[in-house]
């Protein structure tokens, strides 16, 4: 008996265990609360203007030509106007910005029509929607989106609009991502909700697959467009037609194409061998007549769909201190890359 007493088991009573559990929970709750407060504080700092940043004032922004060429973009500078559409004169990109009050994650505009992909703060979680804007940034129509916005384009005359979102699949794995690309006609309001419903002609044969993904639409006119198709582990540049609802592959390894204003060249990002799997791209220009590819002078990996600044230069985003900066490079492979402005994303020229 005495041995049993001195060798009393170290196991705790139920009360003892509850005590240990409560203490542990208290410590963990403290750590958790600290982490949330720290993150909340950091988020609050983004709402205060940073020192040395561009001056941003509220004002009217228009998508219609007004004599002077303007650049409209998503303002990433910290302050009360963060994530709003802002505008600067095209010849003074580093100058003071005018913010419109419309928040967008992705944006593009042409021909007096704008497409704004924005988040909607729901009761529990954010959902996303695509908003078609008129020249005064008033909403014409909106459409619910199935996932996180990533690309947006408007056709040159402002009639057709396309967007791409990331959709995540399986709940348990959480690692199945796909894209959903939609094309909208803003005159008839006909929506092709999923480009995957189009007929796909891959290397001459009709192609069916469950793993088809489209993204990065760029319009040539109201019916013809270029885009990226991924299937079977490869990416393809495709040319599509909204009238016949068909896309045809043109070449492999070409993502997020952007068509030049004269319709003769495409600039896209191409995966280059030997680079890190997270940053494998390089910008290339393709002459659509000669089918010759030229690497652009920007040597860093660019994960963006470029915008044509004029017939000779393209504009694209690279990661920066405030999320993204806009850089330019000549589209013929010569010259060097130059930073145009800081703290900006998703630009569009209004002229």
């Amino acid at each position: 008996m005495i041995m049993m007493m001195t060798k009393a088991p170290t196991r705790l009573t139920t009360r003892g265990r509850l005590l240990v559990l409560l203490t542990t929970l208290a410590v963990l709750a403290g750590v958790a609360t600290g982490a949330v407060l720290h993150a909340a504080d950091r988020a609050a700092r983004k709402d205060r203007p940073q020192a040395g940043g561009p001056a941003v004032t509220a004002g009217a922004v228009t998508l219609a030509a007004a004599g002077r060429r303007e650049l409209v973009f998503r303002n990433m500078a910290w302050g009360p106007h963060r994530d709003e559409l802002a505008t600067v004169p095209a010849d003074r990109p580093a100058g003071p910005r005018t913010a419109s009050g419309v928040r967008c994650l992705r944006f593009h505009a042409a021909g007096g029509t704008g497409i704004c992909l924005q988040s909607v703060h729901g009761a529990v979680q954010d959902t996303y929607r695509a908003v078609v804007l008129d020249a005064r940034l008033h909403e014409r129509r909106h459409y619910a989106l199935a996932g996180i916005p990533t690309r947006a384009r408007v056709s040159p005359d402002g009639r057709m609009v396309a967007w791409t979102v990331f959709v995540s699949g399986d709940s348990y794995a959480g690692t199945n991502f796909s894209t959903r690309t939609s094309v909208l006609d803003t005159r008839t309001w006909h929506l092709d909700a999923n480009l995957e419903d189009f007929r796909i002609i891959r290397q001459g044969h009709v192609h069916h697959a469950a793993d088809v993904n489209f993204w990065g639409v760029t319009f040539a006119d109201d019916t013809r467009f270029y885009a990226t198709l991924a299937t079977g582990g490869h990416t393809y540049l495709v040319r599509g037609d909204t009238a016949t609802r068909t896309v045809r592959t043109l070449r492999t390894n070409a993502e997020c194409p952007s068509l030049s204003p004269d319709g003769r060249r495409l600039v896209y990002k191409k995966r280059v061998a030997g680079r890190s799997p997270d940053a494998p791209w390089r910008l290339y220009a393709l002459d659509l007549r000669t089918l010759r590819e030229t690497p652009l002078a920007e040597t860093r990996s660019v994960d963006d769909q470029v915008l044509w600044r004029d017939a000779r230069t393209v504009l694209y985003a690279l990661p920066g201190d405030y999320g993204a900066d806009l850089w330019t490079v000549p589209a013929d492979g010569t010259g060097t890359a130059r930073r145009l402005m800081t703290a900006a994303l998703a630009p569009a020229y209004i002229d």
Partner: protein
Amino acid sequence: MYLADSRAGTRRVSPGAGAIGATVFALGAVSLVTDISSEMVTAVLPLYLVTGLGLSPLGFGLLDGVYNGFSALVRLVGGHLADRGGGHHKTVAALGYGLSALCKPLLLLAHTLPLIGAVLAADRTGKGLRTAPRDALISLSVAPAARGRAFGVHRAMDTTGALLGPLAAFLILRQAADGYDAVFTVSFCVAAAGVAVLLLFVPGRETGAAGAARTGRARPAPGDTRGRPRSSLALLRRRPVLRLTVCATLLGLATVSDSFVYLLLQHRLAVPDRWFALLPLGTAASFLTLAVPLGRLADRLGRWRMFLAGHGALLAAYGLLLAHGPVYAVLLLHGAFYAATDGVLMAAAADAVPPELRAGGLALVQTGQALARFTASIAFGAAWTAWGDRTALTGAAVALAVVWAAAASLRPRATPVREATP
């Protein structure tokens, strides 16, 4: 001797068919909390990758395929280790839960896709390690007649955690925009709390009715194959186990995976975009509601019958998908399928496997089913590519009907193996 006495069944399980011990609730609580933690991460992962890190996660899912073979091995190893030396179920389970918990702060450090993939793989390794020992613990801590209900309770608590996780994550992001580090930290704290509950409130070796029968022995008798590596696979030599594994594997081959079901719902039944992300919640809600009732029903009618009936529900779901039936009915049937098969299969397997090899036996059945489902996924994807979704789904439905008939005729033994060791 007194050591054996003091260890023997600190919780006496009441012999009544309806009683569920505190152990099941403790394990249910651990699963609930752990699922909150992992679903928090899963819910914000897409946002984190795209918005937080600025990555393009399209090639990400390719890792899944490579990983499945490895996870099968992990499961078998976990089950085998848990059986060794008289039952280390709690230890192996704690290792599994602990590994998954440690992966959460690692996510704070991993900023590239390969590293994140590696962390997620480690998380899933932890999950594979702990599933069989945990299910063995559940089956060992209740009377055989109450197993279906016990597993039903556990699965219901587990699914509740899965539903609460995304809520918690988005509440945090509401407070702190772009606060993904806060989400991962809180996820770690929650997972650690789960490990604490496991360590403190789940009994260790030799518990419950089965434990009382085993504790007389201080060391394995000669001829006892418990400790040997092959003993788990040797379980297949027992007819009931073999039949069960074969049937579960066959039925797994005709099961269309969740992600395809949601894709089919979207393609064929035109689910609006904004509801696409809610589809898994529909299945989970149905699963949650039906887990306990169907578990009890399984105890009354026979677990194998319930398992087969569950696949009947799945077949009905395929039929509705083909017939453009209502979305809610498909989700209801899908959840009912899980409620009738997920825990019930473990209850049925526990009937066929003796207690000293329980974790290994359950791991075997689970692994067979998991590998079969993985193969089915690949086959279904290929069929969709080649012939379109309608033909692929019809093929899956026909395959399921055929396999269902075969499994029904094989009919593994319904009565539980005697618990007491010879």
